[in-house]
């Protein structure tokens, strides 16, 4: 097995708010192998976006790292100084956001910004940078890349902007691409096209991709491995087929069961999970999912659940799961 290109080790991170510190990540361990597509699934508030931000070393001004590391090619990026972090971003690791409109400056053309993103490529001339930007736009499927280079962000549709954002992220050939809800703001038809594009690019660039989303369909279409998060913890990690066809953690099962897309027969009532997320200002000592879990026993409410390996590459954080 090759060295992971990105690994998150025992990462705990809290957000300082006037009402107390919110434990957004609680002991997360996760690694990404070269060229693999890892999906991070979970509902809002589970910490998946915080994890994505921490992976590129941008957890936000009120975040406090309580323990752990994020290693990218052997270096701990959270421990690096801001300048060194900046040099890693773009070259080694890049990110695509949900709303690409906010990732671009509204007053510069796409071409100017794509050239600018290559500022770290010292050896290249302006003309070369322009050409590689143009080629990248053609690669991500913009029909008229020369015209698109002269356009401003607002002149492009949402789908085109997301393509440009992906092109921008891949310009420096990073080893890891983090995509936070890359298709959530798009229509189904655009969503299908972006999924298709990411699949192609992964084959061409051999770049590892981390897809963070609440959309289980997108993960099933695209990922090799899936990590399911709940209340700041990774509750289950599994190869994609096992996760959808042999899920072990009760939360994963509940999540899959209530996805309307999973229920093909017309149903009068859809299953729901019930209950609500625990207050992460004061995380529970036992299993965080226990209050909503149908399998919970008294032990679940008091003792932290063990991580149970159920198959190679498949584990679940649960008292009731047996290997």
């Amino acid at each position, binding site marked *: 097995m090759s060295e992971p290109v990105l690994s998150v080790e025992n990462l705990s991170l809290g957000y300082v708010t006037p009402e107390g510190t919110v434990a957004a990540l609680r002991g997360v361990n996760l690694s990404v192998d070269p060229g693999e597509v890892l999906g991070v699934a979970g509902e809002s508030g589970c910490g998946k976006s915080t994890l994505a931000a921490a992976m590129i070393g941008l957890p936000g001004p009120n975040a406090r790292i309580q323990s752990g590391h994020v290693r990218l090619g052997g270096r701990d990026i959270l421990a690096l100084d801001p300048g060194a972090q900046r040099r890693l971003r773009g070259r080694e690791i890049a990110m695509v956001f949900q709303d690409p409109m906010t990732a671009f400056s509204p007053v510069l053309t796409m071409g100017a910004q794509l050239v600018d993103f290559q500022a770290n490529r010292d050896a290249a001339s302006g003309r070369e940078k322009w050409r590689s930007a143009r080629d990248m736009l053609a690669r991500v499927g913009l029909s008229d890349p020369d015209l698109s280079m002269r356009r401003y962000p607002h002149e492009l549709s949402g789908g085109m902007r997301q393509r440009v954002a992906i092109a921008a992220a891949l310009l420096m050939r990073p080893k890891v691409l983090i995509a936070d809800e890359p298709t959530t703001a798009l229509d189904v038809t655009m969503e*299908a096209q972006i999924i298709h594009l990411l699949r192609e690019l992964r084959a061409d660039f051999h770049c590892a991709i981390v897809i963070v989303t609440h959309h289980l369909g*997108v993960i*099933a279409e695209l990922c090799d491995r899936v990590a399911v998060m709940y209340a700041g913890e990774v509750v289950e990690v599994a190869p994609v*087929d096992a996760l959808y066809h042999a899920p072990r953690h009760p939360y994963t099962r509940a999540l899959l069961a209530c*996805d*309307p897309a999973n229920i093909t027969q017309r149903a009068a009532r859809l299953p729901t999970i019930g209950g609500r997320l625990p207050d992460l200002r004061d995380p529970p000592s036992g299993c965080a999912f226990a209050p909503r879990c149908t399998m919970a026993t008294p032990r679940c409410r008091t003792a932290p659940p063990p991580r149970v390996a159920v198959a190679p590459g498949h584990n679940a954080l649960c008292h009731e799961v047996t290997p």
Partner: protein
Amino acid sequence: MTALLDIRDLRVEVAGGGWFDPAGRGRLTILADLSLSLAAGETLALVGESGSGKTTLARAILGLQATSGGTMAFDGKPLAEPGDFRAIRRRTALMFQDAAASLSPRMTVGDAVIEPFAIHGVPIGNRRDRIAELLAEVGLAPDMAARYPHELSGGQARRVGVARALALKPALVIADEPTAGLDVSVQAEILNLMADLRARHGLSYLIITHNLALVRHVAERIAVLYLGRLVESGPTGAIFADPRHPYTQSLIAAEPLPDPRKRRADLAIRGEIPSILRRPAGCEFHTRCPLADAICRYDRPTLRDLGQGRRMRCHFTDTTTKGGRHELEHR
């Protein structure tokens, strides 16, 4: 039985205007020749991508968007003059896609849910009891009444939106993307809530969405819109089992399924919905259609009745076998 809502040949055009056309001669067509009807107690889903004109239709039904042709009738009474729309305000309600943004930011949840009573001068009796009752109906605790919109979660804001929409017991609720931006478990809760309320109060829903997974569960009939024109309509089950229009087929195929064993290798649909500024000649879908033939580029197909309540707008009678013999429609 007369339809609750009946729309015939509805047309919405806006002035193109602009620098070179101050007279607005270049009219942009947003909705064209749209006919729909909705029976009392029925749920109809209007499906299409953004830019298909589905939100404009909702606004037109409520009188918030001027129409330039066709007729609309609500419960048998025509909707044409501003007064006609005012007369049905109490019997219609609109649920917004962004539920939190549809609540006045400096108004508490309690004030927001009883606002329809204040607007229409309907007596409410004990204010607190009525608020608690309305909130209970959508599964919210009475202490939510003191909250402000920015203090609500996505699901809670959506419930407040439902409570307000149903406050005056309307006959028709238009719901714009009722589950957009919600987590899957919350989506299911909102859909269940809408189904319960429909059963309890005999509501009709007009659901506007691009999310097919949602449509399958809540709608009895589907109408698919492309660039402001109806391309296919019919009973939900029949359309999902056997979509006829190439656009409907692509939409269903494009939906990512939560099952890695059903991955799609090829691309279901290419390109983007064209801008209404550059409406394609002939069949509007020909620029993206896998079946498009010469005739599609200049001749606009008409809406054909396929029987069993199904209608479709395509030149081809057999759209299921790609590359198979297709019969052209002769007029």
